[in-house]
């Protein structure tokens, strides 16, 4: 029996397997970001935020909502996608997807698709948690969801690369902890980069995360640190870069096929 031009059952098998793993630990998977976000709102929203001036007409507690969502989305995307592909490499079970009639696209679709679902679910739970603490509006809800999915897909692809690159579980943590989280904190998650003095404002513009957070904030309040066009271009550029690296990985078999 031929699997046809698209092995949808194979993709579904991987997707379902990954989602089951998430569902097995769903309470810890969701409780951690909810508690963390609540703490951020208690500290930055109520304690410090009440003494902060509004930024571009947006109350400070509301201003940080998109940034907090992005912070969790980046980390959840990288964690889920990198763990999803690294685990079978670590256990040796990767032999099965590699020997199955799956194209590289289908394989990535299964693993990354599940990671995008998980990361997006966490981001939406954080959004719901934020609504308990703060009044905010979403000016462009369709674009908010579209941007959320675009960024989640991009960072899950990045996480997939990290999961293949990493030689052990310690290395899985290096990129999120040492690069992504600092760049997010310095990329305007909790402030507008416009309030930075020169030359820091110019230097900050070399941080790609600025464009992602700014774009996402635009979908909420119609304004960001950079124009939405630049934000979309930066996100698409990162997405294409990740796709290019993954194409190279499958072409060369880097750390997948010896």
């Amino acid at each position: 029996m031929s699997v046809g031009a698209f092995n949808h059952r194979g993709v579904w098998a991987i997707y379902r397997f990954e989602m089951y793993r998430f569902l097995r630990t769903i309470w810890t998977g969701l409780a951690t970001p909810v508690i963390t976000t609540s703490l951020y709102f208690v500290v930055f929203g109520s304690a410090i935020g009440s003494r902060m001036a509004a930024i571009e007409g947006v109350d400070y507690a509301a201003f940080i909502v998109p940034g907090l969502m992005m912070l969790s989305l980046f980390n959840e995307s990288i964690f889920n996608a990198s763990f999803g592909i690294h685990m079978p490499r670590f256990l040796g079970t990767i032999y099965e997807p590699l020997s199955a009639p799956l194209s590289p696209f289908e394989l990535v679709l299964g693993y990354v698709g599940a990671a995008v679902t998980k990361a997006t679910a966490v981001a939406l739970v954080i959004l719901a948690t934020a609504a308990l603490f703060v009044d905010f509006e979403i000016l462009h809800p369709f674009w908010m969801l579209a941007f959320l999915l675009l960024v989640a897909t991009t960072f899950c692809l990045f996480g997939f690369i990290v999961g293949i690159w990493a030689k052990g579980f310690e290395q899985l943590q290096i990129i999120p902890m040492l690069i992504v989280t600092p760049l997010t904190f310095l990329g305007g998650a909790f402030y507008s980069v416009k309030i930075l003095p020169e030359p820091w404002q110019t230097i900050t513009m070399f941080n790609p995360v600025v464009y992602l957070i700014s774009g996402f904030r635009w979908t909420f309040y119609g304004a960001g640190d950079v124009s939405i066009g630049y934000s979309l271009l930066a996100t698409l550029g990162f997405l294409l870069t990740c796709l290019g690296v993954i194409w190279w990985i499958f072409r060369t078999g880097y750390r997948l096929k010896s």
Partner: protein
Amino acid sequence: MPPVVSIRNVSKRYAGGHEALKDVSLDIERGEIFALLGPNGAGKTTLISIICGIVTASGGSVHVDGHDIVADYRSARTKIGLVPQELHTDAFEPVWSTVAFSRGLFGRPSNPAHIEKTLRDLSLWDKRKAKIKELSGGMKRRVMIAKALAHEPDVLFLDEPTAGVDVELRRDMWNLVRQLRESGVTIILTTHYIEEAEEMADRVGVISRGQLILVEEKNALMQKLGKKQLTLSLSQPLAAVPPELGEWDLALEADGTVLRYTFDATADRTGVPSLLRRMSDIGIGFKDLETRQSSLEDIFVSLVTERREVAA
């Protein structure tokens, strides 16, 4: 009938420069049990991994049921089931789920009846709800086989299927392999247990240092290369082989109490009757005698040793 697996001039050189396979060509006939023998590091697993798509060959081509494993990998891979050497499993998955996952991965529609039959055939039905981590090593090995059979492959690769399993399970495995062959599945197994190949295989291939040095019908191989030995337990020990017995290939062993004669069993004249007559003539008596055919292991060791000597 065309071969079900056709391997042509396959080579593999790893990034570090190690040449794991050198110009290997081999045809596997439909419905046979083929045993690939070789010492550790000979290239057996590399060859299987290339056919299954886990390792990329440096050169050559492989066709499975007429489908090129690179250009037409989807069709080729649906024909193949692989049981790897190591017990790679998801410890927290129940048996049924992991077998159903394998079937889905290979693009097959859900078929609970087939999965049930597979689990029953492998004596896993009672364990279908158990998590893999709760199973014994032998049971895990069976789960690996069930996963490989989940998508109803035509060709099954068993990489060291009985490595580290007890004698009873090994016998069970052999019976299972025979049943699979009877159901029309072609079996290719790698092993360094000669007994396994001798017990089950129709044909044997010997691989050493990345080169396929011999492919032969098992029985023909044993007949062609097999030596036979006559062992005589002497009534009285001898200090040396008497000069009157110089024309036979004799060895005196066990402090002169055993006389061993190695001969070609396929020759017209084996020399056994004349040896016994001459011994009688010169007064050498014996208490017991036995003959033994060389095992596949003897042949294998001799081939590999010969190869190493040539390489040195």
